[in-house]
């Protein structure tokens, strides 16, 4: 059960989930629609013939070029991307899913993008999602307790965003 028939089975199982496929790169990946993510993951873990029971890693990338000169030359427009690395412990197979989200909810500054949480599918996602929320600013709906995990609770701003400015002062400590 390889490649194409896996993809066709995925499309059959969750319609409208698969938006793009990029198979000729070093690590082939599939692009999944944001609203269909939870359904896809549940299918991959429980119903798909190859049980993807291991969630290796959740990462968020901030595609945004701060200085205008370079921004002109760049072919993608600014967005936030959340990447899920899954693997199956039985079949020794790995899979990469990507979800594209707007940088800010409805494009107004300060409201972070929303995405459904996959903690109900893999318990391991709990801390990974908290880290993505903490460092890159992605709101995971349905997460048991979405709090900052690495930065202090009352830290503002999302450090791994490209346009992030270190605060001038934090509790009396000089920032910059």
């Amino acid at each position, binding site marked *: 059960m390889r490649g194409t028939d896996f993809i066709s089975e995925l499309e059959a199982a969750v319609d409208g989930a698969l938006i793009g496929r990029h198979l000729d790169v*070093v*690590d082939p990946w599939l692009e999944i629609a944001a609203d269909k993510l939870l359904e896809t993951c549940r299918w991959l873990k429980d119903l798909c013939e190859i049980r993807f029971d291991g969630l*290796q*890693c959740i990462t968020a990338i901030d595609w945004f070029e701060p200085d205008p000169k370079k921004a002109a030359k760049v072919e993608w427009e600014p967005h936030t991307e959340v990447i899920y*690395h899954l693997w199956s412990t039985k079949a020794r197979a790995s899979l990469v899913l990507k979800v594209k989200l707007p940088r800010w909810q409805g494009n107004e500054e300060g409201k972070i993008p929303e995405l459904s949480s996959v903690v109900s599918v893999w318990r391991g996602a*709990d801390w990974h999602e908290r880290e993505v929320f903490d460092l890159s600013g992605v709101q995971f709906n349905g997460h048991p307790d979405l709090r*900052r995990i690495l930065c202090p609770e009352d830290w503002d701003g999302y450090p791994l965003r490209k346009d992030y400015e270190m605060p001038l002062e934090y509790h009396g400590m000089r920032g910059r």
Partner: protein
Amino acid sequence: MSQILDDDQRIIEFDVRTDEMLVNMGPQHPSTHGVLRLVLRTDGEIVSEMEPHIGYLHRCAEKIGENLTARQWIPYTDRMDYLAAMNMNLGWSLAVEKLLRYQVSEKAKHLRVLIVELNRIASHLVGMGAYGLDLGTFSPFLYAFREREKILDLFEEVCGARLTYSYITVGGMTADLPPGWLQRCEAFLDQFEPIIQEYHALLTTNAIFVKRTAKIGVLSPEMAIDYGCTGPVLRGSGVDIDLRRDGESIYTAMYDGYAFEVAVMKNGHYPRDHEYPAVPRDAILGDCWHRFFVRMLEVVQSMDLIRQSIDRYSQCKGALGEPLKLAEKLPAGDTYLETECPKGQMGFYLVTDGTSIPWRVRARSSSFSNLAVSPELCRGCLIADVPAIVGSLDVVMGEIDR
């Protein structure tokens, strides 16, 4: 093999009902490994809720990675799991080489196996010693560090550093082995072999150690996989996964032709390539004792690997090969690679936009997921078990907080 616990050892009916007490252990607590703060809600001696707080050692290595070239980021990988820096370097170098589709020389491959397995022994020694410290006995810690010093001397001869080596870089190694190093390494292995039995006598088969670790913090295989636990924690629960055999092709290629058994309990017994102490009667698969025992087996396994790699390395003709240029241009794209580090599977995710500086760098830490399971294991145990459980997960804070 299902053993439902009849004598509910962990639920102890206490007559005196004291009120709930919120108690926190750390961050400067001597038993937690580094700056980890555990908040326990205890009722008398029983821990009803445990929540680890991390982030005290967060140095935002990933943000810095967005301004450095691939080779310049190597020293940051050293500081993640500072007890096994060589494995970290290897993981990052292989990820970049996978993106570049670059093959290192045969000699470099065998040298990498040698160095990485030696570092695994050093890391497991620290794990064993610190675990003895958690359970109250101080002596094994010193025996472990006495042996580790010898390994660090060997590393010092190779790359000049004792803890953060930055020796393995993208495209090979910064320097070849000094003359006579292989003989000294072999001498170390020969004198280290009998000492392993000492450690077994001191801890593994020690009645009180068994009493403190058997049946404590039992992690079922499904929960281990569900939480993304990897390495000795996963193998301690009986899941037969070791990336050196089941990993990505570029990583398993290094171990091609090496004979080694994965240290996991398969249908009731561990691999028998050496005579190991028997599993105590009341230890269940997945408890603290098994996690500790898997690490002790891996030390012996690594010694075999080192001996094989020494033979292969000395037979290789040809040059070691120079590492890539400092500002090597990276093709656009992204790649993710996991390698088998002593604490578990350490993954590096590299996203590039065509220049020599990566767009995004992400390190997936093994202890991060291993620690994520600890609140589940510590629910309902005694206060004295919390360091035993957290110690058996062998977490390193540098790797968790990055």
